[in-house]
């Protein structure tokens, strides 16, 4: 574990320098343990690291570092929650997936093949980040990886399912975005009134279900 003093009120724990399932499992188990440390205000899990924000009036860097090392040892033997599988219905192509044809052309497939490959894979939610409820998914088949748009769109509709490089994701809310949109889901990924307010959680497995063309 490498520890970086990211700021005067945060510490970054780096568990690995690349994406790995082992690091993910540690991040998954460590996050709730860190959240219960008094003085910790926010925990930002990522692929292979955890950023811990804390109140520097209540606790110091060295205390957080010591607590984190102890919790990491605990996390290694803590039982992980039973993984859930969440099915996400997607209307691929057409008005909901304006870049499906381009992704097919870029990857040497037909649009139907892209849909079959995308909806045939099992994805892992490594973490939620960037914006509310946005899942960082692992598991996109290499053969449908497609470069991001040269010029990002000013507005990507909420629920858009997109490919950006070797990643795939779902935009929980309308926002600017540079990934290629291949479909859309009507399932809300973020609902501030919900408990929890997000559909997906770190560690979930995701399957995309292709809907009949034209329906949402």
């Amino acid at each position, binding site marked *: 574990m490498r520890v*970086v*003093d*990211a*700021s*005067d*009120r*945060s510490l*970054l724990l*780096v568990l690995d*320098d*690349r*994406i790995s399932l082992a690091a993910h499992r540690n991040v998954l188990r460590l*996050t709730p343990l860190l*959240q219960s440390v008094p003085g910790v*205000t*926010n*925990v*930002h*899990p*990522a*692929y*292979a*690291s*955890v*950023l811990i*924000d804390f109140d*520097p*009036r209540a606790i110091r*860097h060295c205390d957080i570092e010591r607590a984190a090392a102890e919790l990491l040892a605990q996390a290694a033997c803590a039982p992980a929650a039973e993984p859930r599988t969440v099915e996400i219905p997607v209307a691929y192509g057409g008005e909901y997936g304006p870049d499906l044809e381009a992704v097919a052309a870029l990857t040497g497939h037909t649009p139907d093949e892209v849909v079959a490959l995308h909806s045939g894979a099992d994805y892992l939610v490594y*973490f*939620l*980040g*960037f*914006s*509310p*409820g*946005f899942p*960082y998914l692992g598991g996109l088949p290499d053969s449908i990886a497609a470069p991001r748009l040269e010029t990002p769109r000013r507005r990507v509709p909420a629920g858009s399912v997109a490919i950006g490089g070797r990643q795939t994701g779902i935009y*929980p*809310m309308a*926002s600017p975005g540079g990934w290629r949109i291949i479909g859309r889901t009507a399932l809300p990924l*973020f609902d*501030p*009134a919900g408990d*929890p*307010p*997000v559909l997906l959680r*770190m560690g979930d497995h995701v399957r995309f279900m292709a809907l009949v063309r034209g329906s949402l």
Partner: protein
Amino acid sequence: MTTVQDLGRPGYAHLGISASGAADALSLRAGNLLVGNAEGAAALEMTLAGGTFEFESGAVVALTGADFEASLPMWTAVRVEPGDRVRCGHARSGARCYLCVNGGIDVPLVLGSASTHLMTRLGGWEGRALKRDDILLTKLGGRPWLRQVSGPAPRSGAIRVTSPVDAAAVCQGVWEVQPDSDRMGLRLRGPALDRHTGHMLTEGVPLGAIQVPPDGQPIILFVEHQTTGGYPKIANVISADFRAVGQLRPRDQVRFEQVSIDAALSLLEAQEEWLHSLA
């Protein structure tokens, strides 16, 4: 632009939700103490331009933060009577002014906070900036006594940063705040910084991180910042200078100065002492 703000909603970064909250939290906290509220009560944050606020019932109010050429003195608890209007103009210097009212602004809490997160339309008053003719309620409460205090010493020097690496590159330049800056981030323009080479794995980003995107023009991630990011970070603004960042306005010139974490924490302690002297 005016929004409802408090000290934000920490605790949801693992869901991708940043804390938000007042851009100059020190001024909001001071204003609340002046009107006898808990320091984190919800108040109105005005950005660059204010507005006219009419009170249907009597209250005790305080204006803190930047001077908006208002009809009331700054840093002073003032009683207003039913029908009174508080007028705030444009920021004379700085960017943000807080109107605190005894009891605090009463809006539904979203994930534990009254703070407006504009990008996601979360919290505050209908998730948006206030418009003409909006009517807001205040809670009952507060134990104000009418008094005036001096605001914190204005920060005119460099914004201080810490960094686990040598931040000389960003500390040597003079940076101009760009007009497309907002509560998510302050975009700076100046001598392009070297792109750190190599692939960066997406990781958590703290408040005040100075991120260097591929064009070499740094961005200070601010209260509505994204919770994770993949761009290299060269330094991080110290907690005691968040308020200075919150008072930056477009075209301001900014310099940075690297300090140690111990020095940053001493500066924060001094600031907290000033605040507690108001309680």
